[in-house]
């Protein structure tokens, strides 16, 4: 009996049900790892694919949504303008889960403006930046996150200081900001789960090497550099609703961050004794790590209490896109009154 052999999650779906089209990204592209962890995370979180929408801008990274969850609605929008697309789309049915995959060019170069404004509005949305320091799809020009001095074929040396997406997200008042690495699948998956359950914008800056154009061992966005310089802030795990636990602060213990829906993020402390709840402190920590030439990964800032965009509106429980016509058009009497309001 075939069924037996297929593992199913609590809603009776197999991993297959979470897959998308065959990837057309390069062999070994960091973005493939992100796709894989999104699939696992959603499978393990028992998310019905139809309850999720996936969006992106333009770039190799922005192709990622094609490769997971065929049964979810998706929109591959315009370069740098995924945030506005996602904002409008989620108003259609605010109960849906929104996942976006963007690139460093898509977010930090052309997309900077929309990125900052979507974080500011705290749209409930998982915003993944597949950050490789280059424009992959246009064949290897510097993106805004490329480190100063980086040398690439045809492009010479990068003149400018890089944009730090985590700094920008925090300055932009994102309520959930993390950094991780395609080479650290466990942490990546845990962060994706937490991000999905966070009510508000969850920005995950994933260092995701471009093996074709920017994977030189000494380049900041390469596998080699990541592997040898990654320092995890904590051992991170996501737990579905459990008995409420008081957050404790003694050293060595785990820090538990409760999310709005009763789920928790558990941060088991490692080398650093770090609490991701203070914006300025987070940046301080990053500066120091920079000086130590470390690639800090983990949950860098979170504020589960910040009102999400939809908390700021007074929308009905029925999704707007399912409201019956009679609820959309005021009655004739009201128009008479309006006409009387005119002079």
């Amino acid at each position: 009996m075939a069924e037996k052999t297929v593992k199913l999650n609590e809603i009776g779906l197999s991993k297959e049900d979470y897959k998308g089209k065959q990837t057309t990204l390069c062999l070994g592209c960091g973005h493939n790892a992100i796709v894989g962890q999104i699939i696992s995370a959603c499978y393990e979180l028992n998310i019905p694919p139809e309850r999720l929408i996936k969006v992106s801008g333009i770039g190799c990274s922005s192709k990622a949504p094609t490769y997971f969850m065929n049964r979810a609605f998706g929109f591959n929008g315009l370069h740098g303008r995924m945030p506005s697309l996602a904002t409008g789309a989620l108003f259609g049915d605010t109960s849906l889960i929104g996942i976006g995959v963007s690139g460093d060019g898509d977010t930090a170069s052309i997309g900077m403006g929309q990125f900052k404004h979507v974080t500011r509005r705290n749209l409930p949305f998982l915003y993944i930046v597949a950050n490789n320091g280059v424009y992959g799809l246009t064949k290897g020009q510097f993106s805004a996150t490329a480190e100063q001095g980086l040398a690439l074929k045809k492009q010479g040396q990068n003149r400018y200081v890089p944009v730090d997406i985590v700094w920008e997200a925090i300055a932009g008042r994102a309520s959930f900001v993390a950094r991780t690495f395609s080479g650290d699948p466990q942490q990546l998956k845990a962060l994706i789960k937490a991000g999905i359950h966070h009510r508000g914008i969850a920005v995950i800056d994933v260092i995701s090497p471009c093996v074709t154009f920017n994977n030189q061992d000494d380049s900041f966005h390469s596998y080699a550099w990541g592997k040898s310089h990654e320092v995890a802030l904590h051992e991170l795990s996501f737990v579905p609703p459990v008995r409420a636990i008081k957050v404790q602060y003694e050293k060595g213990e785990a820090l538990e961050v409760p999310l709005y829906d009763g789920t928790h993020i558990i941060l088991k402390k490692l080398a650093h004794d770090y609490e991701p709840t203070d914006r300025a402190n987070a940046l301080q920590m990053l500066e120091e790590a920079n000086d130590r030439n470390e690639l800090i990964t983990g949950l860098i800032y979170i504020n589960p209490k910040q009102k999400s965009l939809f908390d700021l509106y007074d929308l009905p429980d029925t999704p707007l896109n399912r409201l019956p016509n009679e609820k959309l058009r005021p009655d004739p009497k009201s128009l008479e009154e309006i006409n009387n309001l005119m002079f």
Partner: protein
Amino acid sequence: MAKTQLKLQTQKVVNEFSINIATINGSGSQTANLTLIRSIFKMGIPVSGKNIFPSNIQGLPTWYKIRVSQAGYLGRSQKTEIAVAMNPKTFGDDLTDLVSGGIFLYADHIKEPIHREDLILCPMPVKSIVKEAKPPRELRDYVANMVYVGVLAFLLKVQLETIESALDFHFKGKKGPIDFNLSVIHDSFHWAENNLEIVSPFQVQPLNLTEGFNLANGNTAGGLGTIYGGMHFVSWYPITPATSLPEAILEFAPGLRKDPETGKDTYAIIQAEDELAAIGMVVGAGWAGLRAMTATSGPGLSLMSEYASLAYFVEIPVVIWVIQRVGPSTGLPTRTAQGDVNQTYYLGQGDTRHVVLIPGTVKECFEFGWKALDLAEKLQTPIFVLSDLDLGLNQWMTPPFEYPDEPIDRGKILWEEDLEKIKDKWGRYLDLDGDNIPYRTVPGNQHPRSAYYARGTGHDDFANYSEKPEEWEENLDRINRKIESSRAILPKPEITTRSGAKSGVIAFGSTDSAVREACDSLQDEGLTLDYLRVRALPVAAEVLDFIREYKRIYVVENNRDGQMHSILSLELPDSAPDLVSVSHIDGMPLSADWIKAAVMEEEKS
């Protein structure tokens, strides 16, 4: 002074003249001007008011041009019979603009030279009257404007009770301000009564021609039409002269669009960070099954190009109001034009051609407000509504807004149960009905076969990525046929015929009343013209028939290059030589006089 006056007595002109009120913006003359035009309107006399204002908030010259016309000509008049000069900076120009025999009212503290002998001069002791009234400091300038209201009331014989009801309306019945302003108006009226020896040849006499009409502007109407069209989602970015349209929605939606059951809002409005985001949001919303709209003007329209091209190609319903102002570039942000016809029609890279509705009256702004939302979802494409500053911001006489005569049309949306019925035949871009309009599903649909992946890149009938030449071409041709098919369902042109007309005029939008006036007076000159007003692009068959019918057709528009003339020329190459472009742009609404002169010029050649 009196003597000069008497010599000037021209014979009485009733209900046919224009008043040009020159003030300084930010000085609160708006209330005075509205009071004046409303009082005249209340007397049953057709009247219109046009605000000629600067791109600035305070301190620069502003004019308010009131046209009184029992003949019902409410377009801009080039002539000014009465001038009110409250602004020293423009005193000279305001003086020269007056017709001979006109009345020149001015605040007597302005000490500018007056060279003309052929005018009825009327200095007003504004300061002393205001002083008498003892207004609170901050209200002083503001009240000063009521002085000319009072003096004009006396000269033109405007009924004081209509003035009272105008103030009552303006201040929503608040007794304090009503009485105070009224008292100043009375004082001024009596000052005039007691001190002016002049008799105005221009006067108003009560009629009943405004019964069943309101005074309103197109942007408010458009906003209301959008609300009654069942809009779900508005995203916008402020820009003159479009701003007041979304702001009308902000004002009226809360009262009109709360779900009585739940008390919740049945819509959402978001002010975006710019037009790139505004269009992105409405496209996202339209994709997600919301009736979404945005409003902008030329500069913002440029920023919307790329997403417009995507929406056309991905077939997403959105409504985009374009309230035209003078371009190119930032141009004259507070002046009117019809210069974005081309850009709107073809907005975006590649072979795009959009559906454009073109309201010509305030009533149509309301009507197209709701129709646009239906058409967008019916055709699954962006619908542009092309208006302009003159129609959008100025005061027009309009019949009451009419309740939509058609139910809301959501177009071909498939929900779970629908999908069950059509089984696996469905594909997002599959033309099941042979009408070039496929069926669509929207996010939230829980049917396992409902999802598809929208993209601005090439795709097959099932929305899969495709670079196949034949698939690209078939898809793009179908979209073109879809847009072509809209000719049959878009608003038909409005045609006015006269017996014996050999030539015709084609116009669109806010120039309507000026064109009608021009046609009348050209008739007097012996040139009979039939008139067609285009109300949508691509044009209906009726437009083509009209063009074929005459050996010569004047296409009148408020832009430099004759953009509508070009569009029509391409529709009927054989008739192209018969189409004569009559266009110019200088920031002012076209006047009947200019149109008439331009046409007669062409007739000569």
